[in-house]
């Protein structure tokens, strides 16, 4: 494997007395597509939130493109990262949330433009042009001046993806991005993710309950259970020839209820 773009080294996370992640080791190759599955409460969201710097690991090291994320070097020692270091490394990561989290006081276009202009220092014209292109790509070129409250859930989620993509992250995180949507809107969002995945160059981690979709686009599927990566491998290995009983029973819940 080429130099990993993301590396978790023995990462633990506790909330108070509750140990949620009990030693995660994980290397992600550039452009690799990973599906993260597992029962509710197994720590899927926590794993990607630590990479987005929204949650600090209790112990262990996370590296992005060879640089420690939550630590920085100072006089030869690793010390906790400051805001400046976090901002430097975090620039490679983007995230789409379950509940969209669009900025309600901005138009769709401004939602996409605000970070390129203020964070990356792009000119307004350039940011605007790139944002419009991106919004057209997700099929919302005609909604530029609308506010988020005027869109359907599926449209909102597509805006959220465009907003993350204009920042050109090397790694994109998706946290159950279709689970807050009406069933008939799920397809349009998955379609956009599929397009992004096919373009290839970005690594992606998808937390998802859409097993069919995971099989289609993932290079590797991880099954998270009780705070550790219990099983991993190609979609065929994990989803069709699963070894553990826990994974089999977890998957059987989806088979019975997923017609598509």
């Amino acid at each position, binding site marked *: 494997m080429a130099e990993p773009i993301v590396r978790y080294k023995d990462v633990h996370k506790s909330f108070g007395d509750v140990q949620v992640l009990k030693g995660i080791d994980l290397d992600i190759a550039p452009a690799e597509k990973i599906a993260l599955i597992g029962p509710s409460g197994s720590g899927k969201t926590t794993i990607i939130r630590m990479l987005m710097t929204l949650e600090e690991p209790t112990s262990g090291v996370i590296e992005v493109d060879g640089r420690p994320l939550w630590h920085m070097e100072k006089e030869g020692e690793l010390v906790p990262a400051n805001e400046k270091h976090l901002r430097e490394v975090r620039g490679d990561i983007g995230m789409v949330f379950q509940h969209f989290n669009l900025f*309600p*006081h901005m138009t769709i276009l401004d939602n996409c433009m605000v970070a390129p202009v203020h964070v990356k220092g792009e000119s307004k014209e350039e940011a605007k042009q790139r944002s419009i292109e991106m919004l057209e790509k997700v099929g919302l070129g005609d909604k530029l001046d609308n506010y988020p409250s005027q869109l359907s859930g599926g449209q909102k989620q597509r805006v959220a993806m465009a907003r993350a993509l204009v920042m050109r992250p090397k790694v994109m995180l998706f946290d159950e991005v279709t689970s807050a949507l009406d069933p008939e809107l799920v397809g349009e969002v998955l379609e956009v993710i599929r397009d992004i995945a096919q373009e290839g160059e970005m690594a992606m981690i998808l937390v998802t309950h859409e097993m069919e979709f995971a099989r289609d686009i993932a290079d590797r599927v991880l099954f998270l259970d009780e705070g550790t990566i219990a099983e991993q491998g190609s979609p065929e290995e994990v989803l069709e020839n699963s070894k553990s009983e826990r994974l089999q029973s977890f998957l059987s819940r989806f088979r019975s209820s997923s017609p598509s």
Partner: protein
Amino acid sequence: MLASAVLSFVIAFLAGFGRIAKNPIIRKFTGFYIEVFRGTSLIVQLFWFYYALPGLFGIDLGTDFWAAVVAISMNYGAYMSEVVRGSILSVSSGQREAATALNMSRFQRMRLVILPQAVRMMLPEFGNYLIQMLKATSLVSLIGLTDILYHGDIFRSTNLSLAPTVYLLILVFYFILALPLIWLTRWAEKQSSKGVATE
């Protein structure tokens, strides 16, 4: 009135931010200020600024006018800072997280994402406080400032028979002064319900 409005806004924002600052000393200090000024009445504070401060500590705020402005601003600033704090904290954590995911700095998160939403929530309450502040200026006559009521009183005592009319006039006068503020508040309420409604 205008001077106290401006000053109290400034104080409200300073104290509102102070209460949510990372530094515990700043937090404690602004917390103390807010408690003191919310815990005592405006009349007491007016007397303090007008009589006690110059007398006890030799601090003279210059004119009566400035004593009144400072007292009213400090008093309303304390109340309004709680509005500032509450509105900022009520912007959902998802907004903060989305801003972080876009790699905004702490300052950018506040300026571009949180404050614009918080201000929309503050506006209606600020309007209410402005109206109250206007009424509070009548208190000022207690410490001798030439206020509307005070003029009214003088006028009335020279024309005793006209007393009821004068009081009525004063009432109308205050109402006319307050009217634009009431409109402003209405407008602000409408504004605030626009963008912030469920995303």
